[in-house]
């Protein structure tokens, strides 16, 4: 583990509205605080160096992609799937799923046929 920064996973979402207070500006500018917060949201314990580098890079990238808003006018509908398809379901026929052993084969820790997770609640 090369990160010197202690990880502070705040209750995500809580600080959301105040973190991005430049919403109404034409171009977003990423601050260190915002990158930190995005790291928390994305569950990546970014190191200080990474936060600094990402701040610079994302500002350059954001500036270049902001251009899409020039043509994204209200009368244009959005497209999610480029090839329109009607949702279809497969035949309702039972198939053999992975065995318990197969499903657990890649797990970092298992016990009695289950995944072992670190403590979920408390501790913070």
């Amino acid at each position: 583990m090369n990160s010197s920064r202690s990880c502070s996973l705040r209750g995500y979402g809580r600080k959301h509205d105040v973190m991005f207070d430049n919403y109404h500006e034409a171009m977003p500018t990423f601050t260190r605080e915002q990158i930190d917060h995005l790291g928390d949201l994305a569950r990546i314990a970014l190191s200080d160096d990474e936060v600094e580098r990402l701040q610079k890079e994302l500002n350059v990238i954001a500036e270049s992609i902001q251009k899409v808003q020039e043509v994204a006018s209200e009368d244009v509908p959005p497209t999610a799937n480029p090839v329109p398809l009607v949702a279809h379901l497969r035949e309702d026929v039972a198939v053999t799923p992975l065995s318990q052993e197969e499903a657990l084969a890649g797990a970092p820790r298992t016990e009695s046929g289950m995944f072992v997770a670190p403590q979920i609640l408390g501790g913070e």
Partner: protein
Amino acid sequence: MASTNELVKLSASQMAEKLKSGEVSSKELTQAHLNVIESAEPSIQAFLKISGDTALEQAEDADKRRAAGEELPELSGVPIAVKDMIVTKGIETTAASKILEGWVPPYDATVVEKLKKAGMPILGKTNLDEFAQGSSTEHSGFHPTNNPWDTSRVPGGSGGGSAAAVASFEAPLALGTDTGGSIRQPGALTGTVGVKPTYGGVSRFGAIAMASSLDQIGPVGRTVLDTALLHEVIGGYDERDSTSIPEELPKIVKAAREGQKMDLKGLKVGVVKEIGGEGFQPGVKARFDESLTLLEQMGAEIVEVGAPHFPYSLGAYYIIMPSEVSSNLARYDGMRYGLRVMPPEGVPQTAANMMAYTREAGFGDEVKRRIILGTYALSAGYYDAWYGSAQKVRTLIIRDFEAAFEKADVLVSPTSPTTAFKFGEQIDDPLTMYLNDVATIPANLGGVPAMSIPAGLSDDGLPVGFQFFAPQKRDDVMYKPAAALEAALNEKWQAPLWSNLKTPWLDSANQTVEA
């Protein structure tokens, strides 16, 4: 009895003929490629994993099936390499990421099942930019891959491993995945053929998800006919992929064979005005223009078409793609498979902290960059301005394609603005790196099929790619002129482009294969 070098330089369809006539067995053919892999890998490094033993078993099985008189597809017995973005049961699959190091999938991708059913031995798993994110294969979590044309240069990316393996004769065919150009741009930079099928034309079940609305598996080869044959093996409807098109594939192989007759009378070829201006090297433009002349000489009518929203596609792509990446890569949480890193002492040993430290240690720089950008683009209050706007641009790109295909049967452009660049040249400059895909991204946003074929060497002696686009679900439409152009270029050069490639690794690989 044939020498390794003679065998591996054949096209896949020629290999198939020799297998059919009994002149060579699949085991011999597979062994010949394993010989080349052994001698080429120190300088090329196209593979992350070589599965020689299972490949030979699969080859023996293919030989038995043939001997038993089973009706087999044309490519039966021809070996293939698979990009490590596609899961293979029992063969380690990592997406070139430390976070999946050592993971052995308990199931096969649909395309891998189809390869096995067709009797195509799997030589190994090829290198890529981590989770297919990059245009040079320098972002692999394990090692870079070298371009066979100049080992101080990148093979393109993300599918640099598949392209380099095919270019260096380590494999006659390979599978790739293309989200923004990851099959076609490496094809251009290594002088090989790379095809991105229609979105939904080849099942994505078992392709490790990067950006689900853009990802597409496709064939890599040295000839247009070879990729067509492979396209028909892997394509078609799959009930396990909800975006799979529930229709028959068009007649792709037939179209490629038709193209080899070099008659394009009645075909309208549209040159996309918006691709190919500033930033495109003169050598790339020169080869593109020469190919246009050849198309015209074969009877095609060349027209110019406008696609006014294509200049916005790079921006839309760099919103949609990272957004989908941030969502798809949330699954790497250290719980069920892959890496787990516990927090250091002094930090609470919770599941949430474990995830954060696992992802910090397991993901590389480019992947983190995209996850953070995508997390921002999808966050409440920004979704409409970013993701929403990008999806609107996507509509405009699709309309541009529809309008262009009213004026032309196929569209064409250079595949990549430049030839292969040197290692390190662009790695610290994400924006320059992203521009590599400026000509390939519109096809992913529009869901249309597109392919790159070699168009000659630039003034720096490095390969240039020529790109064709066809309308959705009409992949056959681009195979015909692609095969025709390939034939015309080979006639002009009196040999395929690869005859200019220096292959010192083949000298040491050359030995007689036991019959």
